[in-house]
């Protein structure tokens, strides 16, 4: 679905940095600690499964599970702090945050994307149903797929879900780690809520990763078996045009205006030179 024309100023194979090295390292760190946290945390929720009796049969294995879980938690906190710092203190980070801000357009995009894929409105329209409504509100016809900016609603949703989830997990997990501190500050029933929330949020995070993330960067037919952006950080001009057309257009317009400015500057320079050259030649002899 090509909705934006090719720009003569952007090469189809031109490489754009989608994820900087720092961003890829942060993603890698979260990937590793997330897997560790799930592997060492899930047995506590699924303790009724017989397999865990076998997994934890070696002596001290349950204790080691706890050590790994807390070490990975420290890793997650470190990654979160690193990400917060790089977002706040680098210009690229600040631009990322700006591009990541949720907008009304994202809700529209989500609805449009769903409606376009289902194609139900078009089906109704084809059969002459709701003609007046669709004439007055063409958006609800979902004639085209939404055009995405640098971050689509899919990516924004996942990013903010991760931010929200990480904060919940770090907060509740910290007080589960330091029971003494928790109970010095809160009554037992609040501490019980930390335990409850930690478990449910973990399930939510795991299921979200297994559905949303798995499909959108691995299992969808376009990227299967996986998008390589998290490894090389690159996206080609063609991919940008197809997946993030509004960003593509922005880059095109930026280059176009820069080119025009250059041409104008070049013409101006040429004009100045043309005027000044005779003077120089006069002076020299």
């Amino acid at each position, binding site marked *: *679905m090509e909705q934006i024309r090719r720009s003569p100023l952007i090469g189809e194979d031109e490489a754009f940095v989608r994820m900087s090295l720092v961003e890829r390292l942060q993603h890698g760190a979260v990937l590793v600690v997330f897997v560790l946290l799930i592997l060492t945390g899930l*047995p*506590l929720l699924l*303790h009724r499964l017989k397999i*865990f*009796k076998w997994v*934890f*049969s070696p*002596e001290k*294995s*349950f*204790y080691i599970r706890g050590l790994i879980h807390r070490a990975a938690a420290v890793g997650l906190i470190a990654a979160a702090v690193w990400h917060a710092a790089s977002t706040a203190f680098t210009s690229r980070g600040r631009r990322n945050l700006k591009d990541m801000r949720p907008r009304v357009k994202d809700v529209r995009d*989500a609805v449009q*994307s*769903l409606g*376009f*894929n*289902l*194609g139900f409105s078009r089906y109704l329209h084809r059969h002459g149903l709701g003609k007046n409504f669709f004439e007055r509100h063409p958006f609800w016809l979902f004639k085209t*797929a939404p055009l995405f900016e640098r971050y689509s609603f899919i990516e924004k949703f996942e990013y903010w879900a991760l931010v929200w989830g990480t904060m919940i997990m770090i907060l509740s997990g910290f007080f589960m780690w330091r*029971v*003494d501190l928790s*109970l*010095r*500050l*809160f*009554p*037992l*029933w*609040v*501490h*019980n*809520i930390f*335990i*409850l*929330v930690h478990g*449910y*949020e973990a*399930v*939510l995070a795991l*299921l*979200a990763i297994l*559905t*949303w993330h798995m*499909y959108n960067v691995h299992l*969808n*037919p*376009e990227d299967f078996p996986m998008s390589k952006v998290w490894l090389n950080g690159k996206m080609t001009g063609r991919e940008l045009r197809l997946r993030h057309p509004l960003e593509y257009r922005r880059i095109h317009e930026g280059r176009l205006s820069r080119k025009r400015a250059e041409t104008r500057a070049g013409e101006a320079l040429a004009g100045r030179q043309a005027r000044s050259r005779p003077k120089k030649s006069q002076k020299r002899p």
Partner: protein
Amino acid sequence: MSVDGRTLESSVHGQAGLGCIDCHADLKGVKDFPHAEKLKRVDCALCHAKPAQDLKVSIHSPDRPGAPVAVATCADCHGTHDIRAKNDPDSRVFALNLPRTCEKCHGERVVGDRGAEFIKNYETSVHFRALGKAGLTRSADCSDCHGSHLIRNVHDAASQVSRGRIIQTCGRCHARIERDYLEGVHGRDYVRGGMDVPVCTDCHSEHAILSPRDARSTVYATNVAGVCSHCHDDEVLSKQYGFRTSRLKTFSSSFHGVASKFGEARVANCASCHGFHGIRPSSDPRSPINAANLARTCGKCHAGAGRNFTRGKIHVVSAEESNPAANVIRVFYILLIVVVISVSLLFIAADLWGRLRERWNR
């Protein structure tokens, strides 16, 4: 049969100056030696009236209705000419030797309805270890629990090891524990004749009693919950005695329970909070789970535990029973998970459908 004079001389009877005819009355007046091979059975009761009387009503008595063919006689345990005093290390009934003496019959031939293994298990016990390894003669041998001459069937209410008397039997050595037990809820019901209350052997097992620090023990930290829940997860008993069930279930789903199940011995088990021999109801000011004592009880592991430990519930069965805030959060999260994942799957399905249609149209 020939009898060495020295055997008799070194026996307890020989040392007391007894001669052959004191026991073998039928040799009195016999001048023609060697005498007849077969002599009359010696009647020990002539001197040992009390033990003989006891033996007559014991499980070893041949007069008992339904008695087996072979029963133990004086000689089976004490020997014959070489009988020695009980405190003589060479005696068959000396503490260190008694298990072997009893096992002559109860090792294989006479094993009861719980089998030879059940009896043999004694050799793995802490009692036998003390006896066999350290030679601690005070440690329980067979007769300390079962009695000696007056051994009765365990189901006989008069038996030393019957449910009604086992507490006093163990208490003969473990006096302090007996006192603690009798002051606790279990003990108080026991004194009133309650037959369902746990007695020593219900938690510690019978022959195979091990140290609580031994991982194979029934009362090892990670096994305690299983032992208590025998009764405390029992619907019938709970109705009869008015206690609440699902104690194990609610413990198992807590971190303490899960960690304990996976072999972590340092986490709290039932006994860590409730005590063991002298368990008291939470309403008792001396109970470790009385609200006034909770901070100290939890503080055993969670240093600095304060009043906050009492502001909330442990062993929560249902959401309604827990605090309302937790209930709201639980419902919120379940809804959130269901909605987020359903919407997520809906988008995925729509995307796949869209791609498929695009392929068809092309």
